[in-house]
């Protein structure tokens, strides 16, 4: 075998770096040539950047970067670190950033969603001013999210989180003359600001309790029992951190911004936020709670098992989300609530952690976020397609769309049933694994049976409103009185939607590798 040429370690950050670079390129282009509406170039650059990030992330994953043990033995030519034994998690800047399998996994998710959104935006944003700003903001946000995946210290976490949030506020409100967009932006921003204030305060308390901001260091302080004196302080801090993450992942009670933000924002941005941003929120959530607050030692200090918090959050979140979604009239809003519900599902990933193990369920949550990245993005992009065609926003407005666009509607059906988690689509697996994880944990903590039950009930309910949308487009007949003349067939949107749909279907038979990857990643962070 060829002796693999070894890249420097910082190169492991290539995915976020590439995104950042693209963002800067777009800035430069804009400053050289303001008011440019050369969509092909702009969108092209953005897509290229996102894809580059995606490719590197995938390549690193395959190359076993950040993995250790025999799993890393892929024989690829370019690798970071050692191709035979694997590198183990790569710590950068004194552990401020870390690149391991979980980081790469979520970098992939972010990059994929970004690429899809960028492609779709090509048509959707047609005719809008500030093209360049739009794309560069998009990519900056993506950079932030991609960095969140690697952030390993409360400092970097906070910075990355803000880097992701601030552009997002702007993106939501980017349709300046659209009251909906502005209202959405405002609400998103205000709640966001509030949450980040709480979050920072939480950080300060944790720092007060442990004197460190780097996650391993915190863990060590807790383990060595030096934080015992500040159990209340630490507990309060942890709860406040949860608040910050809850905002990012749109979990109850920090979810209030989500319905409005998604409804008001341009559809691609809604897709971006509800998929990538949510995923990014979850990755830091996972990292902080697995790395900084290992279950056993933390329980010893703060006097309770923090999974209880996530059990409560998970149940409440999925219930609120699904129930509120059930009777929505506005499709986008329904999707928004459903994404709240899905946040509840993903929370099971932490709720079902146990002192010994839990990599299965944590991995399941990661898989779910990946699959969700495809099906949910696709669903929102379909809404984007509908908006592009100027059909209304309500279910009734969607009636009989299948007659006009059978292929896209078939894709929509795929997304809906996959979101509902019924076979034969990818959503089934991830949801099932979450369920399994909950059941497995139930043998240790029977409160998890409640979670499992809630999952079943909510899935049943979600079936109702998802199939309602399928019913609208496929079964109901269009109101003959309004004769819509749709524009042409927007290639960008179609391409994105179809790709997402295909992936959603393909992920059913080809779920094995994804599952392995996710579970490896999960076990890696759990042992650390």
């Amino acid at each position, binding site marked *: 075998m060829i002796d693999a040429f070894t890249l420097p370690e910082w190169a492991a950050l290539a995915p976020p770096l590439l995104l950042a670079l693209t963002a800067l390129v777009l800035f430069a282009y804009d400053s050289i040539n303001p008011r440019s509406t050369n969509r092909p170039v702009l969108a092209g650059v953005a897509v290229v950047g996102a894809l580059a990030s995606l490719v590197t992330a995938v390549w690193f994953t395959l190359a076993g970067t950040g993995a250790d043990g025999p799993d890393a033995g892929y024989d690829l030519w370019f690798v970071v670190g050692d191709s035979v034994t694997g590198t183990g998690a790569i710590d950068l800047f004194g552990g401020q950033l870390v690149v391991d399998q979980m980081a790469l996994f979520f970098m992939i998710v972010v990059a994929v969603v970004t690429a899809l959104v960028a492609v779709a935006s090509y048509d959707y944003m047609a005719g809008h001013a500030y093209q360049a700003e739009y794309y560069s903001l998009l990519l900056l946000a993506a950079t932030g999210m991609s960095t969140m995946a690697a952030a390993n210290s*409360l*400092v970097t976490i*906070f*910075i990355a989180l*803000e880097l992701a949030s*601030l552009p997002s*506020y*702007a993106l939501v*409100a980017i349709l*300046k*003359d659209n*009251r*909906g967009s*502005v*209202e*959405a*932006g*405002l*609400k998103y*921003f*205000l709640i966001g*600001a*509030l949450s*980040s*204030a*709480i979050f*920072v*305060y939480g*950080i*300060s*308390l944790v*720092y*007060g309790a442990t*004197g*460190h*901001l780097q996650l391993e260091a915190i863990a060590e302080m807790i383990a060595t029992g030096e934080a015992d004196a500040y159990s209340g302080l630490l507990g309060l801090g942890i709860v406040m951190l949860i608040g910050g993450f809850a905002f990012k992942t749109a979990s109850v009670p920090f979810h209030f911004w989500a*319905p*409005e933000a998604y*409804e*008001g924002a341009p559809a691609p941005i809604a897709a971006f936020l509800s998929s990538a941003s949510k995923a990014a929120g979850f990755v830091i959530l996972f990292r902080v709670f697995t790395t900084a607050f290992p279950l056993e030692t933390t329980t010893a200090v703060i006097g309770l098992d923090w999974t209880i918090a996530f059990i409560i959050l998970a149940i409440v979140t999925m219930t609120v989300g699904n129930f509120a979604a059930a009777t929505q009239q506005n499709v986008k*809003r329904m999707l928004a609530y459903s994404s709240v519900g899905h946040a509840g599902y993903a929370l099971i990933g932490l709720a079902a952690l146990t002192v010994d193990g839990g990599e299965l369920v944590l991995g399941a949550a990661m898989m779910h976020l990946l699959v969700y990245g495809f099906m949910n993005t696709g669903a929102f992009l379909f809404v984007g397609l509908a908006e592009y065609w100027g059909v209304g926003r309500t279910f009734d407005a969607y009636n009989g769309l299948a007659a006009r666009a059978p292929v896209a509607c078939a894709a929509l059906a795929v997304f809906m049933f996959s979101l509902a988690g019924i076979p034969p689509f990818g959503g089934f697996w991830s949801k099932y694994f979450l369920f399994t994880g909950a059941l497995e944990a139930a043998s240790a903590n029977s409160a998890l049976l409640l979670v499992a039950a809630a999952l079943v009930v909510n899935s049943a309910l979600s079936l109702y409103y998802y199939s309602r949308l399928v019913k609208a487009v496929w079964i109901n007949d269009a109101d003959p009185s309004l004769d819509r003349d749709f524009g042409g067939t927007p290639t960008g949107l179609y391409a994105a939607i179809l790709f997402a749909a295909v992936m959603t279907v393909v992920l059913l038979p080809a779920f094995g590798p994804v599952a392995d990857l996710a579970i490896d990643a999960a076990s890696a962070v759990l042992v650390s």
Partner: protein
Amino acid sequence: MTVGIEYYVLLSLALFCIGLFGVLTRRNALMFLMSVELMLNAANINLIAFAFYHGNLTGQVFALFTMALAAAEVAVGLGIILVLYRNFRDVDVTVPSEMRW
């Protein structure tokens, strides 16, 4: 003589609560924003105090970051408030409530 750490914490807590109170009661977007800034600064006080207490500089450095980000946040916020005013002819945060339920 030095002041006990708990007083700093109480101060910051008080500041935090004042900010929170502002957030909950003020309808003017700018006041809302300022209240949030108060909360952020409450955190900063903590960070600096604890840094002093623990004898490492991490907290103080982080406090600097926080201020910078706070500034950025305000910038974006003001931008949004501007378009808010342009669309609603008002900066009352309770006015834009078209999207609900």
